[in-house]
């Protein structure tokens, strides 16, 4: 019995490109059970090994097939506290689904969609495991409330620690809140997942910038935290370094997305933070951030939104689903163009000049290297959104000179331990911009290391 992959219903492209509602609508129970029946329940499941947090995928799918969604949830929850989020945003084709055995001959099992279904079911039905926490009355501090910080906080809380999360912004969730748009990850899903951590007893403090409001030294020596986890992410936008980059109308994706996602500029003037992009928007880059920026620009009403990317279509680092959705929504892909200069008038950008590239030899990343041709093309634009990457936010390092970082600003760790005793780190701040699930995995592992460290203090 070979069955085709159960397709998840989505909003029609021409409708959704004018609203901010979620694009993918999710499975019904029947859809989920049907899709679950495609899993072969492998003895040596390749999918599990390819999931960064090793969810017991065959088990949760088997439970789902038996319509026992509750058990499926608790199976996932043991390894992953944010299934409704990961089910939506994991690059599944490179992880679990990429390894699924069914994928050799047909489309792999839709593990992400199933996980999302279970996660949403748990949120809707307020499933919680009534965990009993035995307080050990020892304080730990978590810096940043992104996926790394959240995962670390929950793991430590389950071990009995008093856990304080400090977040610089006025909302919790890190990139899940300010970066990934509503139409891909509804903010109420993020809030509800965060509420689960709150229910476990994790304390959340907004508007606290570690290094500024309180220093790491003060946390350790004045506030008596036994250990600290740094999950401050990779927030600093990378610059192209081109002439004209600071003209008005040129955004870094972080600013553009923050205006819309965190500050709700799409509701302006009902909300007071504006955003302005005009009709012709060049989005520079080919990753998830670029796709999110382009699709957001389209939804704000820009007529012509195009990607400028210096490699070819096959090299786009974005999740496959996002690329497909972007194409359906009318985003144009101008490939093999490398921006070299912004031009403008009265400090307002109106053109971007690009060098035309061609493909050369394979490079280290296994993709064909873009080579300059000496030929140029200029595009007329009203604005541009630069989305070519992020590196760690510099505040912590500036405030804490003894914290060792590498030449790209990433915190150097050994088994999650930084150069400062009692201070651990994980997520994007260590790896550079990566993924939600890798950040969560790092947070979880760091919690284990922190627990060992704190216990070793007591032996002395």
């Amino acid at each position: 019995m070979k069955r085709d992959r159960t397709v998840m219903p989505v909003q029609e492209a021409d409708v959704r490109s004018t609203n901010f509602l979620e694009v993918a609508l999710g499975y019904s129970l029947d859809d989920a059970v049907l899709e679950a029946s495609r899993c072969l329940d492998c003895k040596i499941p390749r999918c599990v090994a390819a999931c960064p947090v090793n969810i017991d995928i065959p088990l949760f799918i088997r439970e789902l097939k038996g319509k026992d969604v509750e058990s499926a949830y608790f199976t996932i929850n043991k390894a992953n506290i944010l299934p409704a989020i990961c089910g939506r945003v994991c690059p599944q084709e490179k992880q679990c689904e990429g390894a699924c055995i069914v994928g050799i001959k047909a489309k792999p099992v839709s593990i992400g969609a199933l996980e999302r279904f279970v996660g949403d079911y748990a949120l809707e039905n307020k499933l919680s495991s009534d965990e009993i926490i035995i307080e050990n009355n020892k304080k730990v501090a978590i810096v940043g409330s992104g996926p790394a910080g959240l995962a670390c906080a929950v793991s430590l809380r389950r071990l009995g620690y008093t856990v304080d999360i400090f977040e610089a912004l006025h909302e919790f969730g890190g990139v899940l809140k300010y970066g990934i748009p509503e139409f891909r990850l509804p903010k109420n899903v993020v809030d509800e997942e965060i509420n689960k951590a709150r229910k476990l007893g994790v304390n959340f403090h907004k508007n606290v910038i570690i290094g500024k409001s309180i220093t790491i030294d003060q946390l350790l020596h004045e506030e008596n935290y036994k250990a600290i986890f740094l999950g401050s992410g990779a927030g600093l936008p990378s610059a192209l370094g081109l002439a004209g980059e600071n003209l008005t109308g040129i955004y870094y994706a972080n600013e553009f997305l923050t205006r819309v996602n965190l500050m709700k500029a799409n509701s302006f003037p009902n909300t007071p933070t504006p955003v302005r992009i005009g009709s012709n928007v060049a989005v520079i880059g080919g990753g998830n951030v670029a796709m999110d920026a382009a699709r957001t620009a389209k939804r704000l009403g820009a007529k012509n939104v195009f990607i400028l990317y210096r490699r070819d279509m096959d090299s786009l680092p974005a999740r496959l689903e996002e690329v497909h959705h972007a194409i359906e929504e009318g985003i144009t892909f101008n490939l093999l163009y490398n921006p070299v200069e912004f031009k403008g008038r009265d400090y307002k950008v109106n053109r971007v000049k690009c060098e035309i590239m061609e493909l050369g030899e394979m490079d280290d990343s296994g993709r064909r290297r873009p080579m300059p041709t000496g030929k140029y093309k200029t595009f007329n634009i009203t604005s541009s959104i630069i989305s070519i990457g992020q590196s760690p936010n510099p505040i912590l390092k500036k405030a804490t000179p003894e914290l060792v970082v590498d030449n790209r600003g990433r915190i150097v760790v050994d088994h999650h331990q930084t150069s400062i005793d009692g201070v651990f780190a994980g997520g994007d701040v260590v790896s550079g911009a990566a993924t939600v699930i890798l950040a969560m995995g790092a947070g979880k592992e760091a919690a284990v290391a922190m627990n060992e460290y704190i216990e070793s203090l007591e032996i002395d």
Partner: protein
Amino acid sequence: MYKIIRKEILNVDVELMEIEAPLVARNALPGNFLIIRVDEDGERIPLTIVEHDLKNVTIIYQKLGYSTKLLSQKEAGDSLFDVVGPLGQASHIRDVKRVLGIAGGVGAAPLYPQLKEYAKRGAKVDLIIGGRTKEHLILLDKYKEFCDTVYCATDDGSSGIKGFVTQVAEIVYQNYKYDLAIAIGPLIMMKNCVILNEKYDIETDVSLNPIMIDGTGMCGNCRVTINGETKFACVDGPDFPAKGIDFDELMARQKYYNHEEDHICKMKLSK
């Protein structure tokens, strides 16, 4: 929530608030700023920390557009939704003997903690302060506590000379030499001060106020070009030595949303 302890009306356009925010006060230094959001959907607006004790911080703001007018509707006893800080680099207090402060309008507020710090460290300090009318010259009494001489300039001549701070400076420079000037006010004023001071070979520090969102180096909205290099005012500044700052670009960047700001102000605050 962050409680407003005290509110004082300094003139028709400018008000002062003391706000309870112990985590902002704890490590605050001269030159630092904070960001507030007045209400639940509020804009994030940056304001300088003018004074602080262990628990409270004082801000002085000009009712300019929508968000500062909304702030002005709050009274002592009310609360603000968010207050975060201290942000930015503390002012780099240089080892100099004679300092001239040049304040334009509400720029007198951010200048105050810095200039006071110079006086505290033993420098001889003078001030040129300018504003629309006599009422717009704020903090005069507080400045007089540590300034040797205070010169005034007003648009209507109601106090000091009728004209700009640069005109006063031009006169003062005929008689006195300064090791350093600190100019804080509207961008156009700072730009003109810098041009004048270059002529008189006086080094100048300025405090930049580009549009900001997060204030933590994450968005890049606050970027300024200095000697061809991009700086983020929120983490590299907001204070900078004035040499090489592209003021014209910064003015264009600051005005980018004027049309939208005007619209929301008319729409939502007209009674």
